[in-house]
């Protein structure tokens, strides 16, 4: 559209302004070049996704040439670094889900309550005081949470439950719960905030108290948005690495006891990466197979969250 108006200008320009014609041509060329370059920059993100899929797929395919699908999905032990190698993924999935579920048990109620307080109860002034603390909590590097889990939460757990192992799922789960708490809180708050004022006013007019309005009108109205926030937080918990690598241990096993040492998928990738594993070995390929599993799990959850958010938007726009 812009270009066509230049064209008109050029044809109607008197000869005195002819020099501007070449200028216009140069400007149009510059415009096209800049636009092309910026488009290429935007494509980098697409190339990143393709790169991830390509790299994971390539090494995973090599892995499955040496280890069968049946071994991967049916065996109940994961010991690729031992002499007798077993390749059952479930112990790692078990550890991952156990820690993530524990983290969600901490983060869900606290995060939702925090969101309700911020959005429905707190005055603007109180909000402005509390919000930065949650933002700092979100900005702390995960390795710091790992340190805190190992040197503070674990000793605390051991003083309450003496049978707790030095590395255990519970300690990592609690630290991770507080790590994802701000995510749950701020995304849920956004969802609550998007509920139209008229719904609240209608409920107040019927004589509801502030808490009744919040829990019986606003939260149900924002439900899909809150659910999306929960799923996104769970996906972050599953992909979280440093806390579990530091505090949860390196013993892949099928257990539901949070006080035992376990190993998550991410912690396994770190464990192998710490050693100098030569390219092309089966050990090297296992981390890509585990990475593929992790990628697919988080991708599925991100898509679910995205679909929920979109549905939620459709309701009130």
């Amino acid at each position: 559209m812009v270009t066509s108006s230049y064209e008109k200008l050029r044809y109607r320009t008197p000869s005195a302004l002819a020099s501007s014609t070449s200028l216009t041509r140069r400007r149009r060329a510059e415009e096209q070049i800049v636009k092309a370059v910026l488009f290429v920059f935007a494509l980098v993100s697409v190339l990143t996704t393709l790169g991830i899929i390509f790299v994971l797929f390539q090494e995973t395919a090599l892995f499955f040439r040496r280890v069968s699908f049946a071994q991967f999905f049916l065996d109940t032990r994961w010991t690729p670094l031992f002499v007798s190698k077993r390749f059952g993924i479930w112990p790692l999935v078990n550890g991952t889900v156990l820690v993530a579920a524990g983290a969600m048990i901490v983060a869900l109620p606290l995060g939702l309550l925090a969101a309700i307080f911020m959005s429905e109860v707190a005055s603007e002034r109180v909000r402005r005081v509390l919000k930065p603390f949650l933002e700092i909590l979100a900005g702390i590097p995960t390795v710091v949470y790992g340190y805190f889990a190992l040197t503070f939460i674990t000793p605390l757990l051991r003083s309450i439950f003496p049978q707790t192992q030095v590395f255990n799922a519970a300690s990592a789960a609690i630290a991770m719960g507080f790590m994802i708490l701000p995510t749950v809180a701020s995304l849920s708050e956004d969802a609550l905030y998007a509920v139209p004022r008229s719904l609240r006013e209608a409920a107040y007019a019927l004589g509801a108290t502030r808490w009744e309005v919040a829990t019986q009108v606003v939260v149900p109205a924002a439900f899909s948005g809150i659910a999306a926030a929960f799923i996104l937080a769970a996906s972050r918990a599953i992909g979280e690495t440093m806390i579990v690598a530091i505090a949860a241990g390196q013993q892949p096993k099928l257990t539901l006891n949070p006080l035992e040492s376990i190993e998550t998928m991410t912690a396994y990738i770190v464990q192998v990466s710490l050693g100098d594993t030569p390219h092309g070995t089966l050990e090297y390929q296992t981390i890509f197979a585990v990475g593929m599993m992790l990628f697919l799990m988080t991708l599925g959850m991100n898509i679910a969250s995205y679909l929920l958010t979109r549905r939620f938007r459709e309701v009130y726009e």
Partner: protein
Amino acid sequence: MTKGIQQTTSSERRALPEPFIFEPNLDRRKVIARIWESVALIAILLGIGMLLTLLVRVFLDGLPYLRPQLFTEFPSRFPDKAGLRSALQGSIWLMVLTALISFPLGVGAGIYLEEFAPKNVVTRFIEINVANLAGVPSIIYGLLGLGLFVRGLGLGRSLIAGVLTMTLVILPVIIVSTREALRAVPTSIREAALALGASRWEMVRDHVLVYSMGGILTGMILALSRGIGETAPLITIGALTYIAFDLRGPLDIFTVLPIQIFNWVSMPQEAFHRLAASGIIVLLAVLLSMNALAIWLRNRLQKRW
């Protein structure tokens, strides 16, 4: 007959959804509301309490090792001689180079999507893709870096492999914050520039970018502060090595602050844990000053319309 009427009423009542049952005891409901509101406040205070406990703990643990040698010495087997010299160099180099590469890439992509992109399938696809990348666990980027930069391009476990990996990790954050900053500039500014005969790029370069630079730089600093604390992708590309020499160039092997901290936390000795805590104090101090800078920039450069 009376009984019959009563029954209908009560069954009608039961048929209504729960919230609509009229409960006249307002005083009791108000007390319940108060109690729950306090519980919600306690939930927030619990999070803040956790944060304060963490900060105080780390500070008390790390204080004894927070001394000049921490900054001038290389890592060592002896906690009293160990320092962060190579880790600090690595983190500074990594952040400077990552900023240089990711700034044009991220801001450029943001400008394209916000100012140039036609509304079509390709644009929609790129947008969904950026949103999805923001949700990919950072360790997956580490695997990408390992397969693509370390092995594929043959860069080895060098600083530049780390820089490229880190660039991809923070790129979605920069794109999203750039778009938000651009969106904050009112359309009237764009229309005015176009009406005076500016081309689209001239409009963006001379007007929209100038006004949104505060927001863009703020987002950039916040993205870098995420990158500086990021550990997992760099461990995956193999940056956890014992390094006792000064970093000279982008092809050298390297280590960074959070990796050195992780290394010390993994040691069984108590003294190394305290050393890790002192490293955490340094890391948090860097993060805090970056965030303060971001807030200062936002307040100084951001325009109100």
